[in-house]
């Protein structure tokens, strides 16, 4: 083998996905597969064939997720350990939440969500401190806070899931069934999308902007909790007792989260573009370049659009089973279509007409308001079949 061949082989090996895996990655995959196998052996009698399929593919998916985005390993393990702690502290039933130290101050569904809320708000402030003070250290702290908040949010959902079964075996359900629960989901998904791009683009300058929308969601969540006691777990109405809920709702919130991210990047785009036009050398230049922002905005709208399409179609399939027709022009359905049409138009303009710049950024922000109306406004102002999150 001559030197060229050796060099070629070297390059190919270096780029190879499998050969790029570290021993740590293999430990990760073994841990996840062992966990999956344990769950399979312990609970196989309780699962039907679909659920077994979901369990196995979740395991495989988690392995690949941990391989391609290393930070997910830490997150998964932290969520796992804290959730197990929370679940195992419930011995005598739900009343333990008031008496057990860990539950009361850390890992009951409610306490974990409070931690999540506090950490997201702190992270927002810290991101802005890092941005205005150009402090790398503060940026790292903010990232760590966001990761911690996301961990606590996921723990909150996991433990809440268990708590719903402690109320009654027929009451238990996945916590994506009302506004309170989906607001937690929204915060987590938006944060994760942001964290993904934070690593990808190696910039923390956008953190404050994106976390602002999460803080707004947290503010709503807290108001909803204290004013309306929305954190109380309610049994599902018959229309929601369906497997479709488990996939329709999360898919929708990947869409909503991505649209929210796009709008906040659009805001950053407008800030940066305005500063550039004025020729200012101010703080706005700490933001990524315009073409990076533009690219990120496009990517998140594309991601959101793809998942929103999926979610809407899943919703239609579900509607066909629950309401007797895949499309009823129910206000929620109609507004989902409006959101979809809006982003379809945005994507057409960008991809085929080549529109760029401030108008597209502004449109992405307007898009969030349209989305917000579809998400919340419909429940508040219009009545229809899809009224599960009344305000």
């Amino acid at each position, binding site marked *: 083998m001559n030197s*060229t061949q050796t*060099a*070629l082989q070297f*390059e*190919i090996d270096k*780029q190879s996905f499998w050969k790029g895996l570290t021993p740590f990655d293999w430990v990760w995959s073994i841990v996840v597969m062992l966990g999956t196998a344990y769950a399979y052996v312990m609970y196989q009698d309780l699962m039907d064939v679909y659920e077994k399929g979901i369990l196995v593919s979740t395991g495989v998916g988690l392995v690949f997720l941990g391989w391609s985005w290393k930070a997910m390993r830490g997150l998964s393990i932290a969520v796992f350990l804290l959730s197990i702690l929370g679940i195992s502290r419930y011995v005598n039933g739900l009343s333990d939440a008031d008496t057990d130290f860990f539950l009361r101050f850390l890992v009951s569904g409610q306490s974990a969500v409070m931690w999540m809320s506090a950490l997201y708000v702190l992270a927002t402030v810290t991101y802005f401190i890092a941005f205005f003070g150009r402090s790398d250290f503060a940026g790292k702290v903010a990232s760590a806070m966001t990761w911690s908040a996301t961990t606590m949010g996921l723990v909150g959902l996991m433990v809440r899931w268990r708590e719903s079964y402690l109320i*009654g075996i*027929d*009451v238990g359900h996945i916590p994506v069934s009302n506004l309170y629960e989906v607001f937690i989901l929204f915060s987590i998904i938006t944060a994760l999308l942001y964290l993904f791009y934070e690593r990808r683009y190696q910039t923390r300058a956008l953190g404050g902007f994106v976390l602002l929308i999460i803080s707004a969601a947290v503010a709503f969540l807290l108001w909803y909790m204290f004013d309306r006691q929305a954190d*109380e777990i*309610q*049994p599902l*109405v*018959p*229309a929601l*007792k*369906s497997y479709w809920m488990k996939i329709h709702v999360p898919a929708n919130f990947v869409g909503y989260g991505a649209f929210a991210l796009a709008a906040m990047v659009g805001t950053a785009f407008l800030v940066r573009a305005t500063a550039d036009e004025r020729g200012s050398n101010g703080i706005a230049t700490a933001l990524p370049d315009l*073409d*990076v922002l533009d*690219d990120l905005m496009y990517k998140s709208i*594309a*991601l959101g*659009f*793809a998942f929103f*399409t*999926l979610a809407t*179609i899943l919703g*239609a*399939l579900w509607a*066909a*089973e*629950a*309401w*007797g*027709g*895949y*499309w009823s*022009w129910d*206000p929620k359905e*109609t*507004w989902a*279509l*409006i959101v979809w*049409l*809006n982003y*379809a*138009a945005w994507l*057409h*303009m960008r*991809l*085929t*007409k080549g529109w760029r710049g401030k108008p597209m950024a502004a449109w992405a922000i307007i898009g969030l308001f349209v989305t917000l109306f579809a998400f919340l406004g*419909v429940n508040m102002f*219009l*009545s229809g079949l899809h009224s599960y999150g009344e305000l």
Partner: protein
Amino acid sequence: MTNQPTTSIARGAKTSALLVRFLGSMNLAITLLVALSIAAIIGTVLQQNQPYTDYVIKFGPFWFELFQQLGLYDVYSSGWFLFILFFLVVSTSTCIYRNAPNMLREMREYRENSTLETLKNYPNTYSWSLNSTHVEVLDVTQKLFQHNGYSARIKEGDGHTLVSGMKGAGSRLGYVLTHLAIVLVCIGGLIDGNAILKARELLGQITTETRNLPADEVPGISRLGVENMSFRGSVSIPESRESDVLFINYKDGYLVQELPFSVEVKDFRIEHYLSGQPKSFESDLVIHDDRLAEPLQQTISVNYPLIYDGYSIYQASFSDGGSELELLAWPLSGSGTAQKKLETKVGDDLQLNLFNESWVLETSNFRLFNINPSDDPSKKFKNAGPSVQFKMRDKTGEAKEFLNYMVPVEREGQLYYLSGVRSSPAEEFKYLYVPVDDAGGIDRFMNYLHALNDKTLLMDLAAKQNVTGSSLPSQDSAKFNEAMVRLVGVFLKSGMNGVIEQVGKNVPTDKREDVTKLYVRVIQQMLGAVYLDVLAKEGVDVSLGVDEKKAAFFDAASAAISSIDRYGSPVYFQLTSFVHHQASGLQIAKAPGKNLVYPGCAMLILGVFLMFYAPQKRMWAWFETTEDGIKLLLSGHAVRDNMDFSAEYQQLQAQFGRILSP
């Protein structure tokens, strides 16, 4: 002259080309997307398919008429909305017609004929002068292209070699799939929507029925036969009854849809959670069809419909199916009139001749459970038990609506029978609280009420009272007693407020307070005397006064009597027993369009993901042998995703650079 046909053909060709360009243009597509959004918004802001009378009340006759002409009460099947949708289909189809062949060609096209000039002009280009052999460079290029996911074609040209690589052809397919999907979904949706119904109505083949008729009396012009291939209607079937028709709400009336089989509801069940909220709605169905060897039995519930012969049968709602009720009618005025037993059924109108007046009792609903928010903080809901809802219509045709509960509810330690009343459906019910006696019945309250209406008894009792002392001469005393009885009469007729009002009218301002105090005392004393009398007649020993419970009953009963005038009915109906019959509300639909819509949806999802996540990318390696060695040019081009592609190109370029030494 001879040229003319040619030019007109040319002109024709030009016009059609223009038309195709217009229909397939992005501007039109965007305009249609926006128009569709706006139309959709209108349909959500204005509540659709409500009874026409609601709209008249809301908008007034002028706007009602205008909005009706514009089809705003059913936007999504109005002519103009269907027109936009139709145009969207045409526009998207034209787009596919214009672009798809090109896209599909691009998928397979490696652009092996690219010239050096073209390649040099791409933004991602780099060239090397290498000290390698032709074979080596070709080998490295092929392997690196392959390793980076590019499939490649080699073309030996005039003194040079061009390796053309490509990946992500799927995005082109994604374009075709998504746009085709839109067309399929729209066409399928149009088939399942009521466009066909509308067309038949325009042709005069059908008209809606607005009268309230039994299904078999609805004339043929408002009936749809079994051949109707697409519809969505509903029917309410009482338990152990069956139906072979359903009703389609259309405009301001309905249509009857015939079924080729009949559906029997054997049983309908509601299950509840421990907390009281409904957990499931289930119907045991039996399909009777001559084509079946034996009837088909199946239980359906929300989210779990029955699909039979292309018809989907869903659990949509429930209602009362004619429960049999037994009521006791208690007169609220007069004395000594006994209660009367009545029997009726939900949905029936009962002619009554009660207590010298004639009424129609229209029983509209019976509910076995009433799950209401609880004021007990440990429980969110409580079950208030069975209730009956009915209207009492008098000779003039005026009606009051009542909601009576069968089981007493507790309020501040005292149990009450609740009866709500209202004059119109827009109002909230106002409740009369009838206290429950020691025996758990209503008798003591009624005895007390009737005793208060008994003038002779009142006179007797008044004579025994000693309100002002015994110093009055007997003539004045008799007058005073009469006044006391009159006061009780005022109280019965218009409550304590009525008494106070009367004082306000008849007594000078400076004495009002004193007089009011006196009146209230007199009434209290009279009521107390009557109550003691009632108790004594019951056989209760009242010589040592009454216990706390009986005292509380007295206060509650007096308060209830004080509000009888506001209750507004001369009768109180007590629900004593019932036989519950439920009806299951089924929705039955036939939607053949879903055979287009569902594949369309699958294509849409696949297409969208392909378009975004498999963008088409091309790489070229052009090399030729010169006197100085090999000249290599690496160029790359991608339709979109430029930032990612530049990074990818640079990585490949670096790999070439590291492997092949200059």
